[in-house]
């Protein structure tokens, strides 16, 4: 069952689309589930399918096509690092290595305490502020340096959250 909160968010999203095009809300619905649970299971996909009146396979196709959906647990905080060309030129390989050594995990792995997971991304569309990463797909952290990464990890480890734009630059 989808939680009441997720259902309310889907209802809000459905208002954007024609009444006979409920499937248009599937990307948002999967995002809401992921934001709530941390990842999307096969059962979650079935729930979304029932809610929107779609074949489960059609939901599965969407969940597996778009990279930002997580189909396995990826930690309480998922860090996603861009390594594409503009970021690479600005040292994203070193950024990624630094995070790996700080957390003691590799790509697509989760720390033993379940706090952090690490992923790699293609272009995030903010290349002038490279190197970049996102936290939980919601917070863009720009012009990363070891000091900045330390600050972010310390804050998240202590149970804090990043505010909107907190680690962005103007």
């Amino acid at each position, binding site marked *: 069952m989808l939680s009441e909160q997720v259902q309310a968010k889907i209802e809000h999203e459905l208002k*954007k*689309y*024609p009444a006979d*095009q409920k*499937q*248009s*809300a*599937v*990307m*948002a619905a*999967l*995002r809401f589930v992921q934001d709530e649970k941390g990842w999307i299971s096969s059962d979650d996909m079935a729930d979304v399918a029932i809610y*929107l009146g*779609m074949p489960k396979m*059609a939901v599965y*196709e*969407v969940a597996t*096509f*778009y*990279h*930002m*959906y997580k189909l396995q647990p990826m930690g309480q905080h998922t860090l*996603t690092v861009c*390594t*594409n*060309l*503009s970021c*690479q*030129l*600005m040292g994203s390989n070193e950024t990624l290595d630094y995070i790996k050594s700080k957390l003691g995990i590799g790509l697509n792995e989760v720390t033993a305490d379940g706090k952090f997971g690490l992923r790699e*991304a*293609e*272009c*995030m*569309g*903010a*290349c*002038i*502020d*490279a190197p970049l990463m*996102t936290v939980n*797909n*919601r*917070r*863009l952290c720009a012009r990363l340096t070891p000091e900045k990464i330390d600050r972010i990890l310390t804050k998240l480890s202590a149970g804090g959250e990043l505010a*909107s*734009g907190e680690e*962005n630059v103007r």
Partner: protein
Amino acid sequence: MSGPVIFNTLQFDQPWTLENYLKVGGYQALRKILAEKTPPEAIIAEVKTSALRGRGGAGFPTGLKWSFMPRNYQGDKYIVCNTDEGEPGTCKDWYILRFNPHALIEGMAIAAYTMSVKTGYNYVHGEIFEAYERMEAACEEARAAGYLGKGILGSDFEFDLHNHLGYGAYVCGEETALLESIEGKKGQPRFKPPFPASFGLYGKPTTINNTETFASIPYIIRESGQKFLELGKPNSGGTKLFSVSGHVNNPGNFELPMGTPFAKLLELAGGVRHGHKLKAVIPGGSSMPVLPGEIMMETDMDYDSIQKAGSYLGSGAVIVMDDTVCMVKALERLSYFYFEESCGQCTPCREGTGWLYRIVHRIEQGEGRPEDLDLLLSLCDNIAGRTICALGDAAAWPVQGMLKHYRHEFEYHIEHKRCLV
């Protein structure tokens, strides 16, 4: 850095608010056409005069595109804004959503009036969630103030705009893949024809424009198409947003007249980083062929000049590389990107992008073979132009550009199993 057309609110502490947009003439253009009941033909003529060309990369004349929408069609029609910016190097539309969302809203409202459309969608790149939230808030603000919704500014014109968040798929920047994605499907491009103007979103007539294109419209209607044209040069009207990333001291987004010399743009971006020399530039997003620095230093930033130099203006995303860059390594990363992002629908792209990547990867690893370079070029010939969408071309062009100008680096890598630089 401020600019006359789009970055005209940047001097304010909170450039994105309705209040500040109104201070720079915001919504005057919409108010004027609604009060004067300007005929749609006159608006299209004004946009044609401006020589505004699509800012997403293809450079198609905007006025002409708008004229393709069937006038007398009974039933729903749509306009769609493409803010799915995922072409490496490109991040200008991200700034529009963050710093001047109302220019986009007004531009789309004018487009909707012109094409008799009641509903618009703005498809936003998944990773810039904070910009999506700001755009959602700006739409709420516009709705509350009567710039969106029913009876806009006391007229009988009705238009509403909704934002749709993507979730990590470069191919959705292709307009028909984007439509599939709004429909709640995998983002796989559609075969054309039929073109979106006759069969678009939900099978209805649809016009899709880039964010910067829509955001340029208020200026054209408020100030005139001629004035916009004169900001730039013939056949490349207006200003353009340039995203300068890579090895410069001051990377950023710059609004500059079309035809600005690259040397000037580089200077504004602080020059090549401390003490290094300019080696190469990708002038219009990662898909466009790379050009050597010395050619770029003699080239102006507009459609025709860059084409003459052997590449394309594309999205206006300029990736600067200094003399420390190994071109094999740079191409390896780009080829991996296209391999990763191919939607898998067309065999030449699905198989070819992986093949390109594996060859460049083995050259980078010191396992390249002398015949590999000709094989790469032959693969490019068998991908480009043989797929439903342009992702195949986008994968081939960087390979062709690199081998045209830097073949010796690849040969060196194959022979010596290490970088030339």
